[in-house]
């Protein structure tokens, strides 16, 4: 099976700093991939390259077989993206924000897609409220809604649970799993919350100072590190290797 996300020696340098060092990654369709790493490990840089927001210094990446640099528009048609601390147009209502983003995504039936997305995230009845009135957790859910308006094949989530209360985290986790199960979306999730990875992901990768130090399924990971008592210890043992 051809991987839906693939990177080949992907490297990003900022002046003398290497943010990402020859990353080779293959993620198959239908997976929920948890990308672990401490702050500044290079996770956001990776997602920024995969979502076409920035160019790599060298190497290549492809989504659904399309190169992120040379076939950016094709990639963008197939991805959804929830940035860390998602920001909207606070002057506009929920519906106006989503309508705007749906139209920019080239969605044929924006109203139908907005209703569907809001229903999916259990957010109906708030369409005409302005974004400024919502809590962080609610904004993250609207963030998910904007990312799935055009039924993307791959969904990128950058620290989606960051800053949420336990209830918000639980709600978001349920949505992520539902998106994978019901809509068949491949999900690429940056996080440093190990508990989230254990409850949500099927595959994990660990990035340390721009280097991929581990990549395997969650199942295999648990088997390999059976001596360790928790995922957290597994993570630290990998980082220390």
């Amino acid at each position: 099976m051809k991987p839906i996300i693939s990177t080949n020696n992907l490297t990003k340098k900022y002046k003398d700093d290497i943010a990402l060092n020859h990353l080779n990654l293959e993620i198959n369709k239908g997976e929920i991939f948890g990308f672990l790493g401490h702050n500044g490990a290079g996770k956001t840089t990776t997602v920024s390259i995969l979502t076409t927001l920035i160019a790599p210094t060298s190497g290549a990446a492809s989504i659904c077989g399309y190169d992120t640099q040379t076939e950016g528009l094709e990639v963008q048609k197939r991805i959804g993206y929830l940035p860390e601390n998602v920001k909207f147009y606070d002057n506009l209502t929920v519906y106006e924000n989503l309508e705007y983003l749906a139209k920019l995504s080239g969605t044929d039936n924006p109203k139908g897609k907005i209703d569907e997305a809001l229903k999916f995230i259990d957010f109906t009845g708030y369409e005409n409220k302005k974004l400024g009135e919502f809590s962080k957790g609610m904004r993250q859910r609207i963030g998910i809604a904007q990312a799935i308006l055009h039924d993307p094949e791959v969904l990128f989530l950058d620290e989606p649970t960051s800053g949420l209360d336990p209830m918000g985290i639980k709600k978001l986790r349920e949505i992520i799993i539902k998106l994978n199960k019901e809509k068949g979306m491949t999900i690429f999730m940056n996080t440093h919350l190990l508990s989230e990875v254990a409850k949500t992901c099927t595959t994990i990768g660990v990035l340390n100072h721009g280097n991929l130090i581990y990549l395997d399924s969650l199942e295999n990971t648990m088997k390999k590190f059976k001596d360790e008592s928790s995922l957290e210890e597994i993570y630290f043992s990998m980082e220390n290797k």
Partner: protein
Amino acid sequence: MNQIVTIAKKEFKDAIRNKVFLTFLIFLLGLTAISIYVGSVNYQAKVSLFEKTYAQLIVNGQPSDTLVKPEFFPLQLLRATIEYLEIIGAILAISLGYLSIAKEKGNGTLPLIFTRPISRKKYYIGKMLGNIALIVSISVILFLFTFLLIRFVGGVNLNSLEITKILLTTGATILYLFIFFSLSALFTIIVKHPSNALIFSFVIWLFFVLIVPQIGDTMDTDNQVPGGFFNAIHVNKEQSNIILKDFSTYEKLRNGTEEISITKHYERLVFAFLGIKDMYNNKFLGFIFKDKLQDLDLIVIFLLVFGITPVYAFNRSKNLWQQNE
């Protein structure tokens, strides 16, 4: 095309909900209303005085043929409106250009946009069109407002030539405001911190809108005495031109200073349209265009330079969102 229209509509909607923008617009309309009202009342007072004097002369049996009825050129009432537009209109346009880019940069909404299938060029063009629609709306509202004030407060029915001249002034105003919008948008795109862009834009505004035209006006020999220096010493236009030939270097320097200001070109052009400069009063458009072609050309050059440059700057900028972790 649909995406461009979507962006333009959103930009328009976003701006008209902005309180700063609405405050400036109301302020501009208020000042215009006051200036036209004062001008109209002043004219009516002069007419009333003339009529009373005329009637008194008739009653006294004195000759009334030396009494000159005050002339009224209604478009000259727009002088203050143009001066407000030069200054406050430019600020309004700078605010639009700044907010249009800075809000997105500051709020971090651009990553949501550019992970969607839309090119940066299309996105900027959409924003630009939304703001052009806004500038057109502001200009049309303002000049429609002045037209109604002249009609109903001044009690003057404008003829078709005068209405055409107001429409041309509206067009020139749209171009003038768009240049300041683009200038400010350009700075906001290329500098890392949007607040610096606002400072740069206002320095440019201060220099080209206030300082340069003021230098030009101060250096103008005819402006040294109220009502005109040559007029005060009873020298007519032809004679004054002959005298000024002896000061051609000085005049070239003064004119060259004014040439670099877009505000001065706009002012020269619309003052000619509106007959605020007496030599253009009641003149046909052909004469005005021929005489003011250089100002129009320079406005178009400014327009092309500042209209196109931000599109390319936006396409290449690395300052639109944070590009490292």
